């Protein structure tokens, strides 16, 4: 391969909260400093910084990346901020990877921060601007529509029930109980989900992740540096990303082709031919419970329409054969958009190093996958990590 090996060597995060007292800079500082401390580096050791943050409209600061840099340890350094909606958190790691893989940088910080609570009366007002301004917004859109429409199409195409899907929410909120940063964990039942308030059928209150404030940071390094920084580097084995057409009403929403394409790119690079056998843990993007199923299919862990079997059979439990979202995910920990995607990568990092505490999956996992998703149901970003 014409590029250098790259490892994740440190990670840090804040609590995820519905409304944090801290400013975005303060949140970014907490996470960044923790990531540096976790691998005993200082800012002097860092060559460049990748920032991930979703729409400026959440913060009401129209240069959010530049605004964040002091908290992210990025001033007077080469900084890049990339943005692909909800897919940003994993995309930031991909950018960190090619900064280092290219040979131009030896060490980078990857910092994702989101403070959604500043947007009044609800961040939905900012989210709504993802719809086409001429043909869609005049219909009185809201963000839940796209999830409800996609979920219903998925259910109708494969004969999947709301009960099948609710099991994901139950599992992830239960897993989240063991995450010290969670603000939405709980022991709930399938009936709790089914009886929760109908927001945009088939989407109900407990099918949905919250809006959250929080930050996550990683330190990435080239092989030579990584081996000096830690005796437990976690290697980036594969990366992939893909965007589908923004004419979303022309696509069949039952299956995320773009996630499959992103996964195939990452698998080719990692030498994976059978993800179900060769990957030990998965952190698919779960802003809604059906999305985890959707993504497991796109990522090749189940055939189309068959991901619910992984959940119902217990295979996807933390002690199952293929733990899925052992962190608790967006449903169980919280969903500060870009930070939530990066939290999934941090989880794989901690799991592979055996540092996930009460969330640790048994059996010494050696390889894990994190995936994020976003924009108008069109972005897939995938990272495969291994030890």
């Amino acid at each position, binding site marked *: 391969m014409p590029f250098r090996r790259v490892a994740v060597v440190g990670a*840090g995060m*804040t*609590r*995820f*909260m*519905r*409304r*944090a*007292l*801290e400013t975005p800079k303060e*949140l970014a500082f*907490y996470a960044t400093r*923790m990531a540096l*401390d*976790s691998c005993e580096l*200082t800012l002097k050791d860092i060559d460049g910084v990748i920032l991930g943050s979703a729409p400026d409209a959440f913060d*009401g600061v129209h240069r959010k990346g530049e605004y964040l840099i002091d908290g992210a340890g990025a001033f007077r350094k080469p900084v890049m901020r990339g943005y692909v909606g909800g897919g940003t958190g994993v995309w930031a790691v991909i950018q960190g990877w090619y900064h280092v893989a290219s040979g131009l940088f030896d060490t980078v910080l990857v910092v994702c921060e989101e403070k959604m609570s500043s947007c*009044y*009366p*609800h961040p*939905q*007002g900012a989210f*709504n601007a993802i719809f086409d*301004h*001429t*043909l869609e917004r*005049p*219909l*009185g*859109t*809201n*963000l*839940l*529509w796209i999830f*409800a*429409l*996609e979920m*219903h*199409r998925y259910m*109708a195409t494969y004969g999947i029930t709301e009960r099948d899907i609710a099991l994901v929410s139950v599992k992830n909120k239960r897993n989240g109980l063991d995450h*010290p*940063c969670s*603000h939405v964990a709980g022991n709930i039942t399938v009936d709790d989900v089914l009886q929760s308030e*109908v*927001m*945009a*059928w*088939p*989407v109900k209150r407990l099918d949905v992740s919250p809006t959250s*404030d*929080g930050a996550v940071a990683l330190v990435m390094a080239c092989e030579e540096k990584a081996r000096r920084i830690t005796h437990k580097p976690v290697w980036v084995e594969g990366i992939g990303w893909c965007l589908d*057409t923004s*004419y979303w*009403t*022309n*696509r*069949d*929403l039952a299956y995320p082709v773009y996630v499959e394409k992103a996964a195939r790119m990452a698998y080719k690079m990692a030498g994976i031919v059978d993800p179900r056998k060769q990957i030990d843990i998965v952190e698919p993007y779960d802003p809604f419970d059906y999305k985890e199923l959707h993504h497991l299919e796109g990522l090749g862990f189940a055939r189309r329409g068959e991901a619910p079997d992984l959940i119902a059979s217990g295979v996807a439990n933390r002690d199952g054969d293929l733990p899925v979202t052992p962190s608790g995910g967006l449903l169980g920990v919280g969903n500060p958009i870009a930070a939530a995607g990066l939290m999934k990568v941090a989880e794989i990092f901690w799991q592979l190093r055996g*540092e996930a*505490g009460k969330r640790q999956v048994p059996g010494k996992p050696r390889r894990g996958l994190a995936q994020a998703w976003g924009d108008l149901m069109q972005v897939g970003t995938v990272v495969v990590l291994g030890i």
Partner: protein
Amino acid sequence: MPLRWTVNEFRGTPLRESDIPEGRVLSVRWDPNARYAWDAGIAIGRFLQGLKEGRILGVHCPSCRRTVVPPRIVCENCFRPLTQWVPLQDTGTVQTVSVCYVNWDASRRREPEFPAVIALDGASPGCGILHILGEVTPQTVRVGLRVRALWKPPQERTGAITDICYFRPL
């Protein structure tokens, strides 16, 4: 001494929903004075003119032989210009539909609305637009429902997607 904490000490100070309105936390408010007027562009401009005349227009790609709606000036598959305009029927099939009780600001609706993706007759299979359904109930909406556009009277049309009031069962 540098700031140090172990990996298990995660920081952050959660607020209660009432802390800001009740003044326990100092805050500043801002209403952005940013308004927008979007020109419709070339393809959608013609599409909207069609709606004003009571017609739904698509475009045909002679290369991949798709007829798509909403219209566009370039086929994203073939990356060739699209110039063949095709009138579509104002009937179609519901690809997916929701029963929505929430407004954009998360406030609740007493009566639900029914956003749907409707594949239009005359366009390639599965090629649809976003619109809302009317004269339906939560019990009667379903994937596969056949529907027809209910148009505003000609004198009330403005050349907007809302020139179609809604789609209703055939």
